[in-house]
Protein backbone atom coordinates (compact mmCIF):
# COMPACT_ATOMS: atom_id res chain seq x y z
CA UNK A 1 0.00 0.00 0.00
CA UNK A 2 1.43 3.34 -0.99
CA UNK A 3 0.06 6.31 0.82
CA UNK A 4 0.82 9.80 -0.41
CA UNK A 5 -0.71 11.23 2.71
CA UNK A 6 1.26 13.91 4.53
CA UNK A 7 3.99 14.40 1.98
CA UNK A 8 5.43 17.28 3.95
CA UNK A 9 5.26 20.89 3.05
CA UNK A 10 7.17 22.59 0.25
CA UNK A 11 7.93 21.27 -3.21
CA UNK A 12 9.27 17.81 -3.93
CA UNK A 13 13.04 18.07 -4.15
CA UNK A 14 13.66 14.36 -4.75
CA UNK A 15 11.27 12.36 -6.84
CA UNK A 16 11.56 8.61 -7.24
CA UNK A 17 9.16 7.21 -9.80
CA UNK A 18 8.54 3.52 -10.46
CA UNK A 19 12.10 2.44 -9.73
CA UNK A 20 12.63 -1.30 -10.22
CA UNK A 21 15.72 -3.42 -9.81
CA UNK A 22 16.29 -7.14 -9.79
CA UNK A 23 19.39 -9.22 -9.20
CA UNK A 24 18.88 -12.47 -11.03
CA UNK A 25 15.65 -13.89 -9.66
CA UNK A 26 15.60 -11.63 -6.64
CA UNK A 27 13.41 -8.57 -6.86
CA UNK A 28 15.26 -5.91 -4.90
CA UNK A 29 12.98 -3.01 -5.81
CA UNK A 30 9.42 -3.50 -7.02
CA UNK A 31 8.49 -0.24 -8.76
CA UNK A 32 9.09 2.06 -5.84
CA UNK A 33 7.84 5.64 -5.92
CA UNK A 34 8.27 8.31 -3.30
CA UNK A 35 9.01 11.97 -2.96
CA UNK A 36 10.98 13.99 -0.47
CA UNK A 37 10.27 17.67 0.08
CA UNK A 38 12.90 20.38 0.23
CA UNK A 39 14.50 20.33 3.67
CA UNK A 40 12.70 17.19 4.77
CA UNK A 41 14.27 14.20 6.50
CA UNK A 42 12.72 11.02 5.24
CA UNK A 43 13.70 7.72 6.84
CA UNK A 44 13.56 4.50 4.92
CA UNK A 45 12.95 1.84 7.51
CA UNK A 46 13.08 -1.85 6.83
CA UNK A 47 14.66 -5.15 7.77
CA UNK A 48 17.83 -6.26 5.99
CA UNK A 49 17.01 -7.49 2.53
CA UNK A 50 14.04 -5.18 2.24
CA UNK A 51 15.63 -3.24 -0.62
CA UNK A 52 16.32 -0.06 1.28
CA UNK A 53 20.05 -0.10 0.60
CA UNK A 54 19.47 -0.82 -3.08
CA UNK A 55 17.13 2.14 -3.24
CA UNK A 56 19.79 4.35 -1.68
CA UNK A 57 22.37 3.08 -4.17
CA UNK A 58 20.04 3.89 -7.04
CA UNK A 59 19.63 7.43 -5.74
CA UNK A 60 23.39 7.80 -5.24
CA UNK A 61 24.10 6.35 -8.67
CA UNK A 62 25.99 3.22 -7.63
CA UNK A 63 23.28 0.98 -9.00
CA UNK A 64 21.41 1.56 -12.26
CA UNK A 65 17.68 0.82 -12.01
CA UNK A 66 16.04 -1.53 -14.50
CA UNK A 67 13.08 0.82 -14.79
CA UNK A 68 11.87 4.12 -13.41
CA UNK A 69 13.55 7.46 -12.88
CA UNK A 70 15.03 9.66 -10.22
CA UNK A 71 14.77 13.44 -10.40
CA UNK A 72 16.34 16.02 -8.14
CA UNK A 73 15.00 19.56 -8.30
CA UNK A 74 13.17 18.68 -11.49
CA UNK A 75 16.28 17.39 -13.31
CA UNK A 76 16.43 13.72 -14.30
CA UNK A 77 19.58 12.19 -12.82
CA UNK A 78 18.83 8.54 -13.52
CA UNK A 79 21.64 8.21 -16.06
CA UNK A 80 24.18 10.48 -14.39
CA UNK A 81 27.35 8.94 -12.91
CA UNK A 82 27.66 9.35 -9.12
CA UNK A 83 30.29 12.05 -9.52
CA UNK A 84 27.85 14.36 -11.33
CA UNK A 85 24.95 14.03 -8.91
CA UNK A 86 25.95 16.42 -6.18
CA UNK A 87 24.81 14.11 -3.45
CA UNK A 88 26.51 13.89 -0.07
CA UNK A 89 26.56 10.45 1.43
CA UNK A 90 27.59 9.03 4.79
CA UNK A 91 28.41 5.33 4.48
CA UNK A 92 27.66 2.65 7.01
CA UNK A 93 31.38 2.23 7.74
CA UNK A 94 31.98 5.96 7.05
CA UNK A 95 34.35 5.13 4.12
CA UNK A 96 36.86 7.71 5.26
CA UNK A 97 39.99 7.63 3.11
CA UNK A 98 42.47 6.03 5.49
CA UNK A 99 45.54 7.51 3.81
CA UNK A 100 44.25 11.10 3.95
CA UNK A 101 44.14 13.44 6.94
CA UNK A 102 40.86 14.69 8.34
CA UNK A 103 41.36 17.94 6.47
CA UNK A 104 42.20 16.22 3.17
CA UNK A 105 39.16 13.98 3.58
CA UNK A 106 36.84 16.92 4.02
CA UNK A 107 38.59 18.92 1.29
CA UNK A 108 38.27 16.04 -1.19
CA UNK A 109 34.88 16.93 -2.70
CA UNK A 110 35.91 20.58 -2.97
CA UNK A 111 39.15 19.69 -4.75
CA UNK A 112 37.18 17.55 -7.17
CA UNK A 113 35.12 20.64 -7.92
CA UNK A 114 38.25 22.74 -8.50
CA UNK A 115 37.51 25.09 -5.65
CA UNK A 116 40.35 27.54 -4.92
CA UNK A 117 42.75 26.76 -2.11
CA UNK A 118 41.79 29.66 0.14
CA UNK A 119 38.14 28.85 -0.32
CA UNK A 120 38.78 25.19 0.48
CA UNK A 121 40.56 26.14 3.71
CA UNK A 122 37.68 28.35 4.71
CA UNK A 123 34.93 25.86 3.96
CA UNK A 124 36.74 22.89 5.49
CA UNK A 125 37.29 24.98 8.62
CA UNK A 126 33.60 25.84 8.71
CA UNK A 127 32.47 22.28 8.19
CA UNK A 128 34.78 20.91 10.86
CA UNK A 129 33.65 23.62 13.26
CA UNK A 130 30.07 22.64 12.55
CA UNK A 131 30.74 19.05 13.64
CA UNK A 132 32.90 20.29 16.53
CA UNK A 133 36.14 18.86 15.23
CA UNK A 134 38.14 22.07 14.82
CA UNK A 135 41.75 21.28 15.70
CA UNK A 136 41.67 17.71 14.38
CA UNK A 137 42.66 18.67 10.81
CA UNK A 138 45.99 16.83 10.75
CA UNK A 139 44.81 13.56 12.27
CA UNK A 140 44.39 10.41 10.27
CA UNK A 141 41.00 8.65 10.46
CA UNK A 142 42.44 5.73 12.44
CA UNK A 143 43.54 8.18 15.15
CA UNK A 144 39.91 9.15 15.79
CA UNK A 145 37.20 7.51 17.84
CA UNK A 146 34.16 6.05 16.12
CA UNK A 147 32.05 9.08 16.91
CA UNK A 148 34.71 11.44 15.62
CA UNK A 149 35.08 9.44 12.42
CA UNK A 150 31.37 9.74 11.96
CA UNK A 151 31.56 13.51 12.33
CA UNK A 152 34.32 13.70 9.73
CA UNK A 153 32.19 11.64 7.35
CA UNK A 154 29.33 14.03 7.97
CA UNK A 155 31.49 17.10 7.43
CA UNK A 156 32.78 15.60 4.20
CA UNK A 157 29.26 14.91 3.00
CA UNK A 158 27.95 18.44 3.61
CA UNK A 159 31.00 20.62 2.89
CA UNK A 160 30.16 21.00 -0.80
CA UNK A 161 26.54 22.02 -0.20
CA UNK A 162 25.04 18.94 -1.82
CA UNK A 163 21.48 18.97 -3.06
CA UNK A 164 20.78 15.83 -1.12
CA UNK A 165 22.21 14.09 1.91
CA UNK A 166 22.08 10.30 2.14
CA UNK A 167 22.77 8.53 5.43
CA UNK A 168 23.24 4.76 5.19
CA UNK A 169 22.80 3.29 8.69
CA UNK A 170 25.47 5.64 9.98
CA UNK A 171 24.95 4.96 13.67
CA UNK A 172 25.13 1.17 13.62
CA UNK A 173 28.69 0.96 14.90
CA UNK A 174 28.27 3.37 17.81
CA UNK A 175 27.35 2.45 21.34
CA UNK A 176 23.93 3.44 22.58
CA UNK A 177 24.81 6.65 24.37
CA UNK A 178 26.95 8.01 21.56
CA UNK A 179 24.33 6.97 19.07
CA UNK A 180 21.69 9.06 20.78
CA UNK A 181 23.97 12.09 20.92
CA UNK A 182 24.88 11.74 17.25
CA UNK A 183 21.25 11.31 16.23
CA UNK A 184 20.29 14.59 17.82
CA UNK A 185 23.33 16.29 16.37
CA UNK A 186 22.64 15.08 12.85
CA UNK A 187 19.04 16.20 13.18
CA UNK A 188 20.10 19.67 14.38
CA UNK A 189 22.60 20.06 11.57
CA UNK A 190 20.18 18.87 8.94
CA UNK A 191 17.53 21.35 10.11
CA UNK A 192 20.01 24.19 10.33
CA UNK A 193 21.30 23.65 6.80
CA UNK A 194 17.87 22.82 5.43
CA UNK A 195 19.29 19.70 3.79
CA UNK A 196 16.94 17.37 2.01
CA UNK A 197 17.91 14.05 3.57
CA UNK A 198 17.26 10.36 3.18
CA UNK A 199 18.16 8.26 6.15
CA UNK A 200 18.36 4.49 6.00
CA UNK A 201 17.96 2.32 9.07
CA UNK A 202 16.58 -0.95 10.34
CA UNK A 203 16.18 0.48 13.83
CA UNK A 204 12.59 1.63 14.29
CA UNK A 205 13.38 3.55 17.46
CA UNK A 206 16.00 5.56 15.62
CA UNK A 207 13.55 6.21 12.81
CA UNK A 208 10.96 7.56 15.22
CA UNK A 209 13.49 9.90 16.88
CA UNK A 210 14.93 11.38 13.70
CA UNK A 211 12.41 11.57 10.96
CA UNK A 212 9.90 13.99 9.54
CA UNK A 213 8.38 11.08 7.72
CA UNK A 214 9.08 7.37 7.54
CA UNK A 215 8.82 5.06 4.59
CA UNK A 216 8.58 1.46 5.76
CA UNK A 217 9.96 -1.00 3.23
CA UNK A 218 9.64 -4.75 2.93
CA UNK A 219 10.37 -7.15 0.09
CA UNK A 220 11.34 -4.39 -2.29
CA UNK A 221 8.13 -2.41 -1.87
CA UNK A 222 7.12 0.53 0.28
CA UNK A 223 4.52 -0.57 2.81
CA UNK A 224 3.61 2.84 4.09
CA UNK A 225 4.89 6.40 3.97
CA UNK A 226 3.68 8.66 6.73
CA UNK A 227 4.69 10.88 9.60
CA UNK A 228 6.21 9.21 12.63
CA UNK A 229 3.05 9.38 14.74
CA UNK A 230 0.96 8.13 11.86
CA UNK A 231 3.25 5.15 11.36
CA UNK A 232 3.13 4.27 15.03
CA UNK A 233 -0.50 4.98 15.78
CA UNK A 234 -2.09 4.05 12.47
CA UNK A 235 0.04 1.47 10.63
CA UNK A 236 -1.29 0.48 7.27
CA UNK A 237 -0.81 -3.25 7.58
CA UNK A 238 0.44 -6.15 9.68
CA UNK A 239 4.02 -5.69 8.64
CA UNK A 240 4.25 -2.04 9.62
CA UNK A 241 2.34 -2.63 12.86
CA UNK A 242 4.65 -5.47 13.78
CA UNK A 243 7.92 -3.90 12.64
CA UNK A 244 7.45 -0.55 14.35
CA UNK A 245 7.15 -0.86 18.09
CA UNK A 246 5.72 -3.63 20.24
CA UNK A 247 2.31 -4.76 19.25
CA UNK A 248 -0.61 -7.12 19.72
CA UNK A 249 -2.12 -7.85 16.36
CA UNK A 250 -5.43 -9.69 15.98
CA UNK A 251 -7.60 -10.36 12.99
CA UNK A 252 -11.35 -10.38 12.84
CA UNK A 253 -14.48 -9.31 11.01
CA UNK A 254 -16.56 -6.18 11.48
CA UNK A 255 -19.82 -7.58 12.84
CA UNK A 256 -21.50 -4.25 13.32
CA UNK A 257 -20.38 -0.60 13.12
CA UNK A 258 -17.77 -0.20 15.83
CA UNK A 259 -17.66 -3.87 16.68
CA UNK A 260 -15.03 -6.46 15.66
CA UNK A 261 -15.76 -10.15 16.04
CA UNK A 262 -12.63 -12.14 16.81
CA UNK A 263 -12.27 -15.79 15.74
CA UNK A 264 -12.75 -17.00 19.33
CA UNK A 265 -16.17 -15.34 19.45
CA UNK A 266 -15.14 -12.33 21.50
CA UNK A 267 -16.28 -8.92 20.40
CA UNK A 268 -14.14 -5.81 20.62
CA UNK A 269 -15.51 -2.29 20.71
CA UNK A 270 -13.45 -0.19 18.38
CA UNK A 271 -13.46 3.30 16.95
CA UNK A 272 -13.65 2.50 13.24
CA UNK A 273 -15.89 3.27 10.31
CA UNK A 274 -15.06 0.05 8.47
CA UNK A 275 -18.15 -1.48 6.89
CA UNK A 276 -19.73 -4.51 8.58
CA UNK A 277 -18.49 -7.76 7.08
CA UNK A 278 -15.01 -6.41 6.30
CA UNK A 279 -12.00 -8.47 7.32
CA UNK A 280 -9.83 -6.23 9.47
CA UNK A 281 -6.63 -6.22 11.48
CA UNK A 282 -6.65 -4.93 15.02
CA UNK A 283 -3.61 -3.34 16.63
CA UNK A 284 -3.34 -2.87 20.37
CA UNK A 285 -0.11 -1.29 21.63
CA UNK A 286 0.98 -2.87 24.93
CA UNK A 287 1.24 0.48 26.71
CA UNK A 288 -2.35 1.42 25.88
CA UNK A 289 -3.83 -1.16 28.23
CA UNK A 290 -4.99 0.22 31.55
CA UNK A 291 -7.06 -1.09 34.42
CA UNK A 292 -10.67 -0.21 33.80
CA UNK A 293 -10.49 -0.02 30.01
CA UNK A 294 -13.70 -0.83 28.21
CA UNK A 295 -12.55 -3.99 26.40
CA UNK A 296 -11.45 -6.28 29.18
CA UNK A 297 -8.95 -9.09 28.96
CA UNK A 298 -8.34 -11.49 31.83
CA UNK A 299 -5.34 -13.75 31.81
CA UNK A 300 -2.60 -15.43 33.72
CA UNK A 301 0.81 -13.79 33.78
CA UNK A 302 3.30 -16.15 32.12
CA UNK A 303 6.23 -13.77 32.10
CA UNK A 304 6.89 -10.54 33.95
CA UNK A 305 9.92 -8.35 33.25
CA UNK A 306 11.00 -5.23 35.08
CA UNK A 307 12.17 -2.56 32.61
CA UNK A 308 12.88 0.42 34.83
CA UNK A 309 10.04 2.69 33.87
CA UNK A 310 7.56 -0.07 33.16
CA UNK A 311 6.62 -3.69 33.69
CA UNK A 312 6.35 -5.82 30.62
CA UNK A 313 3.84 -8.60 31.14
CA UNK A 314 2.88 -11.48 28.95
CA UNK A 315 -0.61 -12.74 29.57
CA UNK A 316 -2.17 -16.00 28.53
CA UNK A 317 -5.84 -15.09 28.17
CA UNK A 318 -8.87 -17.31 28.03
CA UNK A 319 -9.26 -18.78 24.58
CA UNK A 320 -5.53 -19.17 24.10
CA UNK A 321 -4.90 -15.53 23.20
CA UNK A 322 -1.47 -14.20 24.15
CA UNK A 323 -1.22 -10.55 25.05
CA UNK A 324 1.72 -8.24 25.61
CA UNK A 325 0.97 -5.54 28.17
CA UNK A 326 3.01 -2.71 29.61
CA UNK A 327 2.18 -1.11 32.89
CA UNK A 328 3.87 1.79 34.66
CA UNK A 329 6.38 0.38 37.13
CA UNK A 330 4.68 1.13 40.39
CA UNK A 331 4.86 -1.15 43.41
CA UNK A 332 6.07 -4.72 43.20
CA UNK A 333 6.51 -6.65 39.98
CA UNK A 334 3.45 -8.89 39.61
CA UNK A 335 4.39 -12.53 40.10
CA UNK A 336 4.05 -15.02 37.29
CA UNK A 337 1.01 -17.20 37.76
CA UNK A 338 -1.25 -14.49 39.11
CA UNK A 339 -4.32 -13.68 37.13
CA UNK A 340 -5.06 -10.06 36.28
CA UNK A 341 -7.56 -8.15 34.24
CA UNK A 342 -6.60 -5.29 31.94
CA UNK A 343 -8.67 -3.18 29.61
CA UNK A 344 -8.31 -1.03 26.54
CA UNK A 345 -10.52 1.76 25.28
CA UNK A 346 -11.98 1.71 21.74
CA UNK A 347 -10.08 4.83 20.65
CA UNK A 348 -6.77 3.21 21.69
CA UNK A 349 -7.34 0.37 19.24
CA UNK A 350 -6.27 0.84 15.65
CA UNK A 351 -8.20 -0.98 12.98
CA UNK A 352 -6.71 -1.49 9.55
Amino acid sequence: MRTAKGSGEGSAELLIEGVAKRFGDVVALDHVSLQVAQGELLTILGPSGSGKTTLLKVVAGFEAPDAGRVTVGGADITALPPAKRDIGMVFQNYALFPHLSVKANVAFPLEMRNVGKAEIDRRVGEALAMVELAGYEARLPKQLSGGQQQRVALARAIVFNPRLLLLDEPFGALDRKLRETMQLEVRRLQRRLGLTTIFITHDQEEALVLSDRIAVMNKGAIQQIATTTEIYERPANDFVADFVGESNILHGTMSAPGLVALPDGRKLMVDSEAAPGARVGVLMRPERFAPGGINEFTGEIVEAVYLGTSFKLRLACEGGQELLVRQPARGALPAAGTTITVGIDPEAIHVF
Partner: protein
Amino acid sequence: MSRRLLVAVCALIYFFLMLPLLVVFPISLSSAPYMQFPPPGFSWQWYERYLDDPQWIDATWRSLYIGGATAVLALLLGVPLAFSLVRARFRGRALLDRLALAPIIVPTIILSVAIYGLFAKLKLIGTWYGLVVAHTVLALPFVVLVIAAGLRDFDRSLEQAAEGLGASRWKTLMRITLPLLRPSLVSAGLLAFISSFDEVVVALFLAGANMTLPKKMFDNIMMEIDPTIAAVSVMQILLVSVVLVLIGRFGRGLRDSAR
Protein backbone atom coordinates in the same frame (compact mmCIF):
# COMPACT_ATOMS: atom_id res chain seq x y z
CA MET B 1 54.72 -34.34 20.06
CA SER B 2 55.60 -32.25 23.05
CA ARG B 3 56.17 -28.59 22.49
CA ARG B 4 59.79 -28.73 23.59
CA LEU B 5 60.67 -31.47 21.12
CA LEU B 6 58.89 -29.53 18.38
CA VAL B 7 60.91 -26.41 19.14
CA ALA B 8 64.15 -28.43 19.13
CA VAL B 9 63.33 -30.01 15.76
CA CYS B 10 62.39 -26.65 14.29
CA ALA B 11 65.59 -25.07 15.56
CA LEU B 12 67.50 -27.67 13.54
CA ILE B 13 65.39 -26.95 10.46
CA TYR B 14 65.96 -23.21 10.85
CA PHE B 15 69.67 -23.98 11.07
CA PHE B 16 69.43 -26.09 7.91
CA LEU B 17 67.67 -23.22 6.10
CA MET B 18 70.10 -20.53 7.20
CA LEU B 19 73.33 -22.55 7.08
CA PRO B 20 74.13 -22.00 3.38
CA LEU B 21 73.51 -18.30 3.76
CA LEU B 22 75.72 -18.02 6.80
CA VAL B 23 78.59 -20.13 5.55
CA VAL B 24 79.46 -17.79 2.69
CA PHE B 25 80.21 -14.90 5.05
CA PRO B 26 83.41 -16.31 6.59
CA ILE B 27 84.55 -17.72 3.25
CA SER B 28 84.15 -14.36 1.53
CA LEU B 29 86.48 -12.81 4.12
CA SER B 30 89.12 -15.54 3.89
CA SER B 31 92.77 -14.78 3.34
CA ALA B 32 93.41 -18.18 1.76
CA PRO B 33 94.08 -18.21 -1.99
CA TYR B 34 91.48 -20.95 -2.50
CA MET B 35 88.42 -22.30 -0.80
CA GLN B 36 89.38 -23.27 2.72
CA PHE B 37 87.43 -23.72 5.89
CA PRO B 38 87.77 -22.46 8.50
CA PRO B 39 89.48 -19.43 6.94
CA PRO B 40 93.08 -19.06 8.06
CA GLY B 41 92.85 -15.28 8.29
CA PHE B 42 90.89 -12.17 7.44
CA SER B 43 91.09 -10.32 4.15
CA TRP B 44 89.00 -8.17 1.82
CA GLN B 45 90.76 -9.62 -1.21
CA TRP B 46 87.73 -11.32 -2.77
CA TYR B 47 85.65 -8.18 -2.53
CA GLU B 48 88.52 -6.25 -4.11
CA ARG B 49 88.79 -8.79 -6.86
CA TYR B 50 85.08 -8.51 -7.53
CA LEU B 51 85.15 -4.73 -7.60
CA ASP B 52 88.26 -4.63 -9.79
CA ASP B 53 86.91 -7.03 -12.37
CA PRO B 54 84.99 -5.12 -15.06
CA GLN B 55 83.22 -8.36 -16.05
CA TRP B 56 81.69 -8.76 -12.61
CA ILE B 57 80.77 -5.10 -12.39
CA ASP B 58 79.28 -5.15 -15.89
CA ALA B 59 77.23 -8.21 -15.07
CA THR B 60 76.04 -6.61 -11.85
CA TRP B 61 74.88 -3.43 -13.56
CA ARG B 62 73.23 -5.39 -16.30
CA SER B 63 71.32 -7.48 -13.80
CA LEU B 64 70.29 -4.38 -11.87
CA TYR B 65 68.81 -2.56 -14.84
CA ILE B 66 67.27 -5.66 -16.33
CA GLY B 67 65.67 -6.31 -12.92
CA GLY B 68 64.48 -2.71 -12.70
CA ALA B 69 63.04 -2.74 -16.19
CA THR B 70 61.39 -6.10 -15.53
CA ALA B 71 59.76 -4.75 -12.35
CA VAL B 72 58.43 -1.70 -14.20
CA LEU B 73 57.12 -3.68 -17.14
CA ALA B 74 55.63 -6.42 -14.96
CA LEU B 75 53.80 -3.78 -12.90
CA LEU B 76 52.56 -1.90 -15.97
CA LEU B 77 51.12 -5.08 -17.42
CA GLY B 78 50.32 -7.03 -14.28
CA VAL B 79 48.43 -4.41 -12.29
CA PRO B 80 45.76 -3.80 -14.97
CA LEU B 81 45.59 -7.55 -15.50
CA ALA B 82 44.96 -8.11 -11.80
CA PHE B 83 42.22 -5.45 -11.85
CA SER B 84 40.52 -7.25 -14.72
CA LEU B 85 40.83 -10.65 -13.12
CA VAL B 86 39.46 -9.55 -9.77
CA ARG B 87 36.83 -7.01 -10.76
CA ALA B 88 35.59 -7.72 -14.24
CA ARG B 89 33.23 -10.42 -15.38
CA PHE B 90 33.84 -11.42 -18.96
CA ARG B 91 33.85 -14.63 -20.93
CA GLY B 92 37.13 -16.47 -20.65
CA ARG B 93 38.14 -14.79 -17.39
CA ALA B 94 38.85 -18.14 -15.72
CA LEU B 95 41.00 -19.13 -18.68
CA LEU B 96 42.94 -15.88 -18.53
CA ASP B 97 43.39 -16.42 -14.81
CA ARG B 98 45.08 -19.75 -15.49
CA LEU B 99 47.16 -18.37 -18.33
CA ALA B 100 48.42 -15.56 -16.09
CA LEU B 101 49.60 -18.03 -13.44
CA ALA B 102 50.88 -20.66 -15.89
CA PRO B 103 54.47 -19.33 -16.05
CA ILE B 104 54.91 -20.50 -12.45
CA ILE B 105 53.70 -23.99 -13.29
CA VAL B 106 55.38 -24.57 -16.63
CA PRO B 107 58.94 -25.72 -15.88
CA THR B 108 61.38 -22.88 -16.43
CA ILE B 109 63.58 -25.06 -18.59
CA ILE B 110 60.73 -25.50 -21.10
CA LEU B 111 59.99 -21.79 -21.13
CA SER B 112 63.68 -21.01 -21.55
CA VAL B 113 64.18 -23.40 -24.43
CA ALA B 114 61.00 -22.20 -26.11
CA ILE B 115 61.88 -18.52 -25.87
CA TYR B 116 65.45 -19.33 -26.89
CA GLY B 117 64.12 -20.91 -30.08
CA LEU B 118 61.95 -17.90 -30.84
CA PHE B 119 64.57 -15.29 -29.95
CA ALA B 120 67.23 -17.03 -32.02
CA LYS B 121 64.93 -16.52 -35.01
CA LEU B 122 64.20 -12.92 -34.06
CA LYS B 123 67.89 -12.17 -33.35
CA LEU B 124 67.05 -11.19 -29.77
CA ILE B 125 69.68 -13.39 -28.11
CA GLY B 126 72.12 -11.29 -26.10
CA THR B 127 69.88 -8.21 -25.97
CA TRP B 128 68.98 -6.82 -22.58
CA TYR B 129 65.41 -6.05 -23.65
CA GLY B 130 64.91 -9.61 -24.82
CA LEU B 131 65.78 -10.76 -21.31
CA VAL B 132 63.47 -8.14 -19.82
CA VAL B 133 60.56 -9.49 -21.86
CA ALA B 134 61.29 -13.10 -20.85
CA HIS B 135 61.75 -12.15 -17.21
CA THR B 136 58.50 -10.19 -17.30
CA VAL B 137 56.66 -13.34 -18.35
CA LEU B 138 58.14 -15.08 -15.31
CA ALA B 139 57.46 -12.17 -12.93
CA LEU B 140 53.88 -11.56 -14.07
CA PRO B 141 52.29 -14.28 -11.89
CA PHE B 142 53.91 -12.84 -8.75
CA VAL B 143 52.58 -9.38 -9.55
CA VAL B 144 49.11 -10.73 -10.31
CA LEU B 145 48.99 -12.81 -7.12
CA VAL B 146 50.11 -9.99 -4.84
CA ILE B 147 47.97 -7.26 -6.45
CA ALA B 148 44.92 -9.52 -6.68
CA ALA B 149 45.21 -10.32 -2.98
CA GLY B 150 45.40 -6.58 -2.24
CA LEU B 151 42.41 -5.87 -4.46
CA ARG B 152 40.27 -8.57 -2.93
CA ASP B 153 40.77 -7.02 0.50
CA PHE B 154 40.06 -3.55 -0.86
CA ASP B 155 37.02 -1.79 0.55
CA ARG B 156 35.01 -0.81 -2.52
CA SER B 157 32.91 1.65 -0.54
CA LEU B 158 35.96 3.96 -0.50
CA GLU B 159 35.81 4.19 -4.27
CA GLN B 160 32.07 4.70 -4.18
CA ALA B 161 32.56 7.43 -1.61
CA ALA B 162 35.13 9.16 -3.82
CA GLU B 163 32.87 8.98 -6.86
CA GLY B 164 29.91 10.17 -4.86
CA LEU B 165 31.97 13.14 -3.71
CA GLY B 166 32.60 14.16 -7.30
CA ALA B 167 35.74 12.27 -8.37
CA SER B 168 35.88 10.83 -11.88
CA ARG B 169 36.85 7.18 -12.24
CA TRP B 170 40.35 8.21 -13.24
CA LYS B 171 40.75 10.55 -10.28
CA THR B 172 39.36 7.87 -7.97
CA LEU B 173 41.97 5.45 -9.28
CA MET B 174 44.83 7.91 -8.89
CA ARG B 175 43.82 9.52 -5.61
CA ILE B 176 42.20 6.64 -3.74
CA THR B 177 42.69 3.17 -5.20
CA LEU B 178 46.35 3.19 -6.17
CA PRO B 179 47.58 5.08 -3.09
CA LEU B 180 45.77 2.58 -0.90
CA LEU B 181 47.21 -0.31 -2.88
CA ARG B 182 50.72 1.06 -2.48
CA PRO B 183 51.89 -1.65 -0.06
CA SER B 184 50.86 -4.31 -2.55
CA LEU B 185 52.48 -2.38 -5.40
CA VAL B 186 55.72 -2.11 -3.44
CA SER B 187 55.75 -5.83 -2.69
CA ALA B 188 54.87 -6.80 -6.23
CA GLY B 189 57.52 -4.52 -7.74
CA LEU B 190 60.25 -5.70 -5.39
CA LEU B 191 59.38 -9.35 -5.90
CA ALA B 192 59.42 -8.85 -9.66
CA PHE B 193 62.81 -7.17 -9.37
CA ILE B 194 64.29 -9.93 -7.23
CA SER B 195 62.84 -12.68 -9.39
CA SER B 196 64.64 -11.19 -12.39
CA PHE B 197 67.82 -10.32 -10.50
CA ASP B 198 68.12 -13.93 -9.27
CA GLU B 199 67.00 -15.63 -12.44
CA VAL B 200 69.54 -17.93 -14.04
CA VAL B 201 67.94 -20.55 -16.29
CA VAL B 202 66.42 -18.15 -18.82
CA ALA B 203 69.54 -16.00 -18.68
CA LEU B 204 71.68 -19.06 -19.40
CA PHE B 205 69.92 -19.38 -22.74
CA LEU B 206 69.19 -15.80 -23.68
CA ALA B 207 72.00 -13.69 -22.29
CA GLY B 208 74.57 -14.73 -24.88
CA ALA B 209 77.83 -12.88 -24.38
CA ASN B 210 76.16 -10.23 -22.30
CA MET B 211 76.40 -11.80 -18.88
CA THR B 212 73.92 -11.19 -16.13
CA LEU B 213 75.16 -11.65 -12.60
CA PRO B 214 73.57 -15.10 -12.11
CA LYS B 215 74.92 -16.30 -15.45
CA LYS B 216 78.40 -15.07 -14.60
CA MET B 217 78.11 -16.85 -11.26
CA PHE B 218 76.95 -20.03 -12.95
CA ASP B 219 79.89 -19.99 -15.35
CA ASN B 220 82.24 -19.29 -12.46
CA ILE B 221 80.93 -22.21 -10.44
CA MET B 222 81.31 -24.49 -13.45
CA MET B 223 84.88 -23.29 -14.14
CA GLU B 224 86.62 -22.66 -10.86
CA ILE B 225 85.34 -22.29 -7.39
CA ASP B 226 87.21 -19.32 -6.11
CA PRO B 227 85.93 -17.35 -3.16
CA THR B 228 85.13 -14.31 -5.32
CA ILE B 229 81.81 -15.96 -5.74
CA ALA B 230 81.42 -16.06 -1.96
CA ALA B 231 81.88 -12.30 -1.91
CA VAL B 232 79.30 -11.92 -4.67
CA SER B 233 76.97 -14.22 -2.76
CA VAL B 234 77.29 -12.16 0.39
CA MET B 235 76.34 -9.02 -1.51
CA GLN B 236 73.43 -10.82 -3.11
CA ILE B 237 72.20 -12.00 0.30
CA LEU B 238 72.52 -8.48 1.68
CA LEU B 239 70.54 -7.10 -1.26
CA VAL B 240 67.76 -9.63 -0.70
CA SER B 241 67.74 -8.76 3.00
CA VAL B 242 67.36 -5.08 2.14
CA VAL B 243 64.51 -5.90 -0.23
CA LEU B 244 62.77 -8.03 2.40
CA VAL B 245 63.16 -5.26 4.97
CA LEU B 246 61.68 -2.80 2.46
CA ILE B 247 58.75 -5.12 1.81
CA GLY B 248 58.24 -5.60 5.54
CA ARG B 249 58.37 -1.87 6.09
CA PHE B 250 56.45 -0.48 3.12
CA GLY B 251 54.83 -3.47 1.48
CA ARG B 252 52.42 -6.21 2.27
CA GLY B 253 51.80 -9.70 1.14
CA LEU B 254 54.68 -11.70 2.63
CA ARG B 255 52.52 -13.28 5.25
CA ASP B 256 49.51 -13.07 2.99
CA SER B 257 51.39 -15.01 0.36
CA ALA B 258 51.00 -17.94 2.71
CA ARG B 259 47.28 -17.95 2.09
